């Protein structure tokens, strides 16, 4: 029973002022950094992905041979695989920075709360 109580306390938080945190410059820097990476990335990968069925269904552009007997459709398809791996790897690298920024947001909040006490 004690465990349940503890958990519900945790869910309610420990008196952090989230509205203040949202306005903090640290947090806004984090959000801006995330946005700067995520928005273009999402547009690029969804764009390239959705362009593919459009190209193969409405045009014959990808039916042409790229190399040997392999057509551009196969090359494009495999590039979508490569794109997925590359973007996932880049995100992994970038998110190390995001993690540090997020850590800073909480450290500042902690500090401020202690000072307030």
């Amino acid at each position, binding site marked *: *029973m004690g*465990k*349940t109580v503890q958990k*519900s306390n*945790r869910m309610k*938080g*420990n008196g*952090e002022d*989230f*509205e203040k*945190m*949202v306005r903090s410059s640290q*947090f806004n820097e*984090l*959000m801006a950094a*995330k946005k700067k990476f*995520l928005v273009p*990335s*999402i547009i690029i*990968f*969804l764009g390239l*992905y*959705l362009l*593919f*069925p*459009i190209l*193969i*269904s*409405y045009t014959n552009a*990808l*039916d042409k041979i790229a*190399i*040997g*007997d*392999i*057509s551009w*459709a*196969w090359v494009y*398809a*495999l590039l*979508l*695989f490569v*794109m*997925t*791996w590359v*973007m*996932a*790897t880049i*995100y*992994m690298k970038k*998110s190390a920075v995001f*993690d540090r920024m*997020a850590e800073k*947001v*909480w450290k500042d909040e*902690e500090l401020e709360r202690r000072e307030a006490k």
Partner: protein
Amino acid sequence: MNLTVVVLFLLIVAMTLAITYYAAKRTNTANEFYTAGGGLTGWQNGLAISGDYLSAASFLGIAGAIALSGFDGFLFSIGYLVAYLVVLFIVAEPLRNLGKYTLADMINSRFDAKKVRATAALNTITIVIFYMIAQLVGAGALIKLLFGIDYWLAVLIVGVMMTVYVLFGGMTATSWVQIIKAVLLMLGTIIISFLVLSRFHFNIFEMFSTMKTATPLGEAYLNPGVKYKVPLDTLSLMIALVFGTAGLPHILMRFFTVRDAKTARSSVIWATWIVGIFYVMTIFLGFGAAAFVGADVIQASNAAGNMAAPLLAKVLGGDILMSFVSAVAFATILAVVAGLVLSGASAFAHDIYGQIIKKGKASEKEQMLAAKYASLGVSVFSILLALFAQNLNVAFLVSLAFCVAASANLPVIIFTIYWKRFNTAGAMTGMISGLVSALILVAISPSVISPVEGAALFTGNPIFPLTNPALLSVPIGFIGSIIGTLVSSKQDAKRYAEVKVKANTGYREPLS
């Protein structure tokens, strides 16, 4: 049925039961039951996600589709993989930061409304049931082919196994069954791919040149358009695949088994590599089957092409390899259905019973009992449905499940995390419009009503022309959420501040 296959089959059963035995000892609380205690590492969860995701439809279905329709069969592989970028960029980390056991937990971190939780649970249950029927009916038919046992017995074997894993071993047993399955599946696929490539002297160009003339389709085999001739249908299918994955409850649930968002992220990266490498190899499986088994032989065994991979294994490595591949297919099915039972049970036991009926005040013992009853209930119900659905063409149910996930779950997940103005009314209209539009559009589509007798549930002319409704139902889910939000004037900036901070930075225990 030869001796090798029986031995391998029993080996898998014995191994998974041993896992369940050990897992049962560590499954004493609801937290352990639903999340394996939240202690999985990145690579473990990455393998488990792959094991949860790569169903028999992926393994046997795509191999068969590529064998029979060439390039068009490979479209599924592309969609299933790129979908992981949506999971990675948009869903995985906020979900881990905001949720506890279920998707509804995550959405309710912003709205303390019972109706929101109930609707989210309903969506989960709908998706799980569609997915499950497709898996079990497919499993019954496959095991019948692979091992030569009756359909009802095959469904019962799979059904009893999945029930035992989940009922006694909860998430711990389910995770390890999925991990072992992922390893076996990769091993089997690598062996077959290696043997196929060796026949082409490890020369990709030779492989493509051979395939140009190896099938009855001729050059068309290597080009798009053999299977999907309606452009909008192709686009619609691709939309369902890429957005559906990030809304599938049994996949989302896996992110609660790790300790934090960072581990959730690394598990998606692991899954992206494993799943991606697997899907590249589906080319070799499909091409190999088309070249060395032949379309006529594959279709004689199963019209949809599901026997392509096992038959290819037989040609390449004789009875032993075929037995191994059959055993892998069996393990594949078990891992997926166990994950489904668990996520269905969590919606009933945690969301509906624990949070709505008991208002979150159920004792540990009550929670565990509810989880077990719910697991048993979901299993029995699915087995019964699967037994009655034997002769129905239910293959479309998998893409329907993806479509419901994409239309009803994903818009609300995205808006919950990222849209300040979003409110309870918007969450309700979004989830309901996504679900209802997907269901209605499928019910009047060629998947359900076909002019060809026996091709679908009903004979007649379909009212909606596309087999997959995602092209319409996904935008409807988003627009439904937006309209509902704007119509209601409610807005809770304070609550959103909390959700936004937690979703993006995680939640830390206080230092003091």
